[in-house]
């Protein structure tokens, strides 16, 4: 049974066992506009919660990606190399990196769907 958590900087992590799928939220992709490039880490890189690990670029903006949780990258979403706009089409199913979580307790500091929705509402105003 998987569950999705969100960070204040609009990354999500969908957790299934000790594997997390990290991407940007639908709210973030809408704010960014047409995604033209995703700067991704490499297999084996270690992500540290709160630190940046890449970026999502639109034509005239770039948004750094901050790791919601720590973990080792076990896979990157290679589809995004040729077709970065998949993020615009469906941000939630087009995750950017798959990681093996090193400290599941970090999830407690993230928001659930409901809290995140409130967070986005607050940001709009």
């Amino acid at each position, binding site marked *: 049974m998987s569950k999705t958590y969100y960070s204040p900087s609009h990354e999500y992590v969908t957790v299934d066992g000790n594997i997390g799928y990290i991407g940007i939220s639908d709210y973030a992709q809408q704010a960014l506009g*047409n995604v*033209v*490039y995703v700067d991704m880490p490499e297999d084996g890189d270690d992500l540290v919660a709160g630190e940046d690990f890449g970026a999502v*670029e639109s*034509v*005239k903006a770039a948004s750094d990606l901050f790791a919601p949780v720590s973990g080792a990258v076990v896979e990157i979403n290679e589809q995004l190399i040729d077709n*970065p*706009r998949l993020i615009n089409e469906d941000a939630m199913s087009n995750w950017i990196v798959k990681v093996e979580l090193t400290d599941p307790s970090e999830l407690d500091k993230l928001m659930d769907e409901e809290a995140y929705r409130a967070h986005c509402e607050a940001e709009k105003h």
Partner: protein
Amino acid sequence: MNKKYYGKVIFELSRPGRQGYSLPANGCEDALAGLPSDLLRTKSPELPEVDELTVVRHYNNMSTNNFGVDTGFYPLGSCTMKYNPKINEEMASLPAFTALHPFQPSATVQGALEAYYTLQQMLSEIGGMAEFTLNPYAGAHGELTGLMVIRAYHESRGDMKRTKVIVPDSAHGTNPASAAVAGLKVVEVKSLPDGTVDVEALRPLLDETVAAVMMTNPNTVGIFEHNIPEIAEMVHACGALLYYDGANLNPLLGVARPGDMGFDVMHINLHKTFSTPHGGGGPGSGPVGVRAGLEQFLPNPRVVKHTGDNGDPLFHLDFGTEKGPHALGRISAWLGNFAVELRALAYILSLGRDGLKLAGTLATLNANYIKESLRDLYELPIDRVCKHEFVFDGLTDKSTGVTTLNVAKRLLDHGFHAPTIYFPLLFHESLMIEPTETESKETLDEFIAVMRDIAREAAETPDVVKNAPLETPIRKPDDTAAALNPVVTFADL
């Protein structure tokens, strides 16, 4: 500007066998044939084959789709697009300067070295600094050089912990980028609602890990940082140095000097304040000045003045040997964009001490005049006397859906360049206007009238503004397609 789009690429005009050059034979025996063939290229480069007239017409036609200062007004914030006097071009083109090889012995280039030295002295006087290097090629290169000077200073004292640079959130993008290239970590400090640096937010950031604080004054919203003496004191108390980004120096000419404000290191953009042409993006020039005590850290080579046997001044190039062990080394091949420096020298001579002061004051007057003439229709987030530039946060009436981008593009239809838009990042709809001193009241009034007209259009026929530009050689380009599938050479087309 020609509204008809030309649009051809020179490769498309190529016809086999055409040629646009003539070269003198020197009668020496061919040597290429004697070279090992595996050290030579196997395939000729695919370059155009065109005659001279085709080349001339091609580039002339192309130029008519371009807008320059000589075409019309550039209200481009933070870019200081003033008129570039023609005499400067002519002086920089004198063969006795253009034909000089940089390796020529000093005795044969005394005039060139004196020109460099004279400009360096003038900039030191204008900046209130002890010495300048003219070697950096552009503003960002000057920032990088200045930060290297600062690092060299800390290193010379064995103070190796200083790895951070503090920049305001309103800073030009080059500030944090230059810091990163110089190996420093960037920490942002917040601005107050009036656009000035928040002294209380800065205070806790200052510690023994800070190498420098970078500021521009007036800042990017055109406001004079009146707390600068206090900031300088705080920065120096923590052992860091204060860096002045000279992009906005123009309004302070003759009025105040960065050196007197407590800045330790600064750069000047000759292509802004000192009227050298922007050339479609370069070449610029970014001289760096330092206060007394930091001269030894400036980069090589430098021009040194001595007195000759007959009492006349003699100039020569020094590679750090005369300035002690801490000279930075090289940051450029030679003495920077020398021909650009000659233009700036001609400009300063033309204006002289009084003309420079008047230039700064009139630039400030022009900016305030536009601000006061449009504030009823455009939102003025910071209502104070501005310096060379100011920022509107879009149209006051936001209900029309007309954005800053739309206003900027509509200006193109009226024969004006767009202002700087969506910078600084402090406001959502930033529209930053800097008129410079070289525009007449008539031009400013015409611009004001057009801006008012656009505001009226935004209310009455918003779609016209949203679809702008309509009168330019091309319409809105598809930037997304360009970035998704980069086509960057003719071979890719």
